[in-house]
């Protein structure tokens, strides 16, 4: 049991007035976002049309952004929206338009066994990780870590400055590399 879990379902009714309702509302929003994430994820990995999969992925990412917000890190939440939804998903959708124009062709599983096999693999992995998560006792700090942009900035430019620079190099190489690969075979 998590010590930070102080408000109970009874607390919702007996709680101190408005704040109780507010907590409940936050809980409802969280559930909605959880559902969004999961539904988006299911669409992303099962949809027959790739564009729908990307849309599902975007939906899932929006949910994940909300979850980051609940994890007291609005900055990362916004970055999640900006990078994952605004850039990654759009790029993937873009590529689908360029590379798979005949969208009508439905994409099924690759073989008769792959469906069940995938399900079993995924199920096992999920079960294992869930079990691990539930059964491990984490040393939870009493104080919530509040995300602070300033702190992130300071850390990025001090402790992690080397990684930061490396990431920018990786990104640069990625840009150049993808340009080179994608332009290959096209004279214009």
């Amino acid at each position, binding site marked *: 049991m998590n010590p930070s879990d102080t408000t109970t379902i009874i607390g919702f009714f007996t709680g101190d007035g408005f704040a109780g309702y507010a907590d409940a509302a936050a809980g409802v929003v969280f559930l909605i976002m959880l559902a969004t994430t999961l539904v988006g994820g299911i669409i992303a*990995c099962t949809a027959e049309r790739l564009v729908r999969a990307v849309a599902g992925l975007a939906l899932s990412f929006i949910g994940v952004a909300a979850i980051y917000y609940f994890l007291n890190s609005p900055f990362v939440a916004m970055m999640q929206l900006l990078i*994952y939804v605004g850039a990654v998903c759009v790029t*993937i959708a873009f590529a689908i338009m360029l590379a798979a124009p005949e969208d009508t062709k439905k994409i*099924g599983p690759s073989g008769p066994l792959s*469906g069940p096999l995938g399900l079993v693999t995924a199920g096992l992995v999920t079960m294992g990780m869930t079990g691990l998560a539930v059964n491990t006792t984490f040393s939870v700090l009493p104080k919530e870590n509040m*995300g602070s942009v300033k702190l992130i900035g300071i850390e990025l430019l001090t402790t992690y400055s080397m990684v930061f620079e490396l990431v920018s190099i990786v990104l640069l190489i*990625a840009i150049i590399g993808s340009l080179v*690969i994608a332009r290959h075979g096209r004279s214009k």
Partner: protein
Amino acid sequence: MSILNLHNNLNTYLILAAILFGMGVYGLVTRRTLVGMLISSELILVASSINFMAFNRFTAPDPTVGQIFTLFIMAIAAAEAAIGLSITIAVYRNYKSVDTEDLVDLKG
């Protein structure tokens, strides 16, 4: 523990991450197209990010390390998406298909 208070529980996030990870694995196994696999791998990446974020909030003594890791993961994911998609397009140009089973030039 109330259902409305799930967001204050570390396990919620870990289980969510596990499920997303499972979905990613499932997609990776069953998808036949490169883009589909890429989408699934993004799910896996985001699942790991959630874990980082969750631990960052609930357990880590340093309030920023998880977030910074997540940011790095995002950057890498963006780079991966760009490279992966350009490869996809290049493959499409050569094979007129992004179906992994059609890309069998080396298979005797």
